[in-house]
């Protein structure tokens, strides 16, 4: 986890800075801490907007990128320093990087109180609608009498304090995880997919058994499909059907077309199933998608289609390491859309792109770094997308 630690003081000597630096090194196994300073941030003035100045933008970017923020505040006049308040005002004016960000407050002070009043004010400030941070409740860390608290190596002397701080920080790490779950976008469940193709769309060739081995022949006869050297006008050009076939057969990948009715209409048939990366057989053309996948992988197939139809993802990729180290095989499920942007189905293209990578490395003298196997584990695996489910594995 990555946190930003804001030094709440702009003074040259600050025990709050020392405290954050101690946290950074002492607890580096728990998280990574980037200690940032506020002394270059100007005084907030709503009539003189400096939101786009680089000190404010730098801080903005760091906070946005962080999993959580730790603010260390001193206490001046029973409240937080004006400099820290000014920073928070900038960060709640035109930009709101602390919104829904988990925040933990710590504080050090010269006297017994350990910034107790400042911390309470800071909680109220962070809770204001423009700031809207999510401050960890309880778990106050007040470091009083700071001048006696650190040794000459800037280490906290009291072992109980070190242990207590460890406990509080561990809780904060847990708190960040919790908040992230709380704030994760709530995705509406997507409509079910009709993988058995019980309905039709405009382009469906009706009254032909989709499961038939000779669906292509039957359907072609039904609609008088053109073939051979008949010209077809395309965007942009004219080819004969033979030329289109030649063209598609030469594609260095296995192409499959499934329409938006979940019917498998076409694949560029050049190899027999056993020589393919994902096996297909000629008799499958025309099948509902439910028919050309095993039962156990239908929920994954549905998930992929839901992502593409809803637009949540434009392409779903799955890395398939089972072909061995001499191939880099990726299954790509690319959403297709018409000119109006309507979902039109899936362009599934499967390829081994290792020859391209090898050629490129040789040309440029570049090398691959690290273990190639380390690339496995695409996030889609979480959803159980069964990439190995070939078309021939009929249920």
């Amino acid at each position, binding site marked *: 986890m990555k946190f930003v630690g804001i030094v709440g*003081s*702009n*003074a*040259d*000597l600050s025990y709050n800075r020392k405290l954050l630096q101690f946290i950074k090194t002492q607890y580096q196994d728990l998280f990574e801490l980037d200690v940032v300073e506020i*002394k270059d*941030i*100007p*005084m*907030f*003035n*709503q*009539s003189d907007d400096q939101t786009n100045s680089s000190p404010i933008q730098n801080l903005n970017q760091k906070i946005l990128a962080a999993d959580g923020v730790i603010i260390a505040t001193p206490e*001046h*006049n*029973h*409240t*937080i*320093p*004006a*400099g820290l*308040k*000014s920073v*928070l*005002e900038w960060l*709640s004016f035109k930009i709101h990087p602390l919104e829904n960000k988990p925040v933990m407050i710590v504080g050090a002070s*010269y*006297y017994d109180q350990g910034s107790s*009043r400042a911390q309470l*004010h800071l909680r*109220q*400030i962070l*809770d*204001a609608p*423009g*700031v809207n941070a999510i401050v960890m409740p309880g778990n106050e860390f007040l470091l009083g*009498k700071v*001048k006696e608290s650190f040794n000459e190596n800037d280490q906290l002397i009291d072992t109980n304090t070190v242990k207590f701080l460890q406990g509080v920080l561990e809780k904060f790490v847990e708190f960040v995880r919790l908040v992230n779950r709380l704030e994760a976008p709530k995705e509406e469940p997507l409509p079910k997919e009709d993988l058995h193709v019980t309905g039709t769309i405009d382009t469906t060739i009706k009254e032909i058994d989709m499961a038939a081995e000779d669906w292509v022949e039957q359907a072609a006869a039904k609609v008088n499909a053109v073939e051979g050297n008949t010209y077809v006008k395309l965007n942009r050009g004219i080819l004969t059907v033979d030329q289109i076939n030649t063209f598609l057969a030469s594609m260095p990948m296995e192409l499959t077309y499934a329409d938006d009715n979940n019917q498998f209409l076409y694949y560029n048939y050049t190899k027999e199933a056993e020589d393919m990366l994902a096996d297909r057989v000629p008799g499958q053309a025309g099948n509902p998608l439910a028919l050309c996948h095993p039962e156990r992988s239908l929920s994954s197939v549905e998930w992929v289609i839901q992502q593409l139809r809803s637009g949540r993802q434009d392409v779903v990729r799955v890395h398939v390491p089972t072909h061995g180290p001499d191939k880099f095989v990726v299954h790509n499920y690319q959403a297709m859309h018409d000119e109006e942007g309507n979902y039109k189905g899936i362009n599934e293209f499967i390829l081994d792109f290792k020859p391209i990578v090898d050629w490129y490395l040789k040309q440029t003298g570049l090398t691959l770094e690290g273990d190639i196997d380390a690339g496995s584990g695409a996030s889609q695996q979480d959803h159980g997308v069964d990439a190995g489910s070939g078309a021939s594995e009929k249920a």
Partner: protein
Amino acid sequence: MKHFIGLVGTNSDQSTNRQLLQFIQTYFKDQATIELMEIKGLPVFNKPKDRIVPDEVKVMANKIEQADGVIISTPEYDHAVPASLMNALNWLSYGIYPFVDKPVMITGASYGTLGSSRAQAHLRQILDAPELKARIMPSSEFLLAHSLQAFNEDNQLLDSSQVEKLTGLFADFITFVDLINQLIHAHGSNKKAAENFSWDNL
């Protein structure tokens, strides 16, 4: 006649708190003279080791010392006092102590419904800190809500009940100043406590 400082609690060019103080200044001109004081342009307080405060702060401190009381009108930013006002108070309590035992009345205006209620509560705590130790008039909130709609083009408060309330508070403040001036017994020790307050000797 009493002389007060009206401290504008923001550095913004547009401020209904400034407007409110201007209204108080003219409306009560027969009862007190009020000089408005701005806080714009002060450097960000950074606890300089040499304890030298900027010249403009010294001028402000001097005027506050001379005045019979201070009226602070604060907006509310993020549930609290604006940084610019906190900053002015940080400087005005760093090696100089113009606020110690100074009678203070707090007012506030806000665009919304709450009229800076939380900022005023914070400001009371702040003014109670050892190096400020002002004498804040108790039980005397003046919250001006929806302040953008509160004044007419001649800068008069439109709501007569608000004017009535303010009139009462202002009369009380004048009495409060006289009262505080009799509470002199602790002044010496308060002043001493502020002066002896040291960040390093605690």
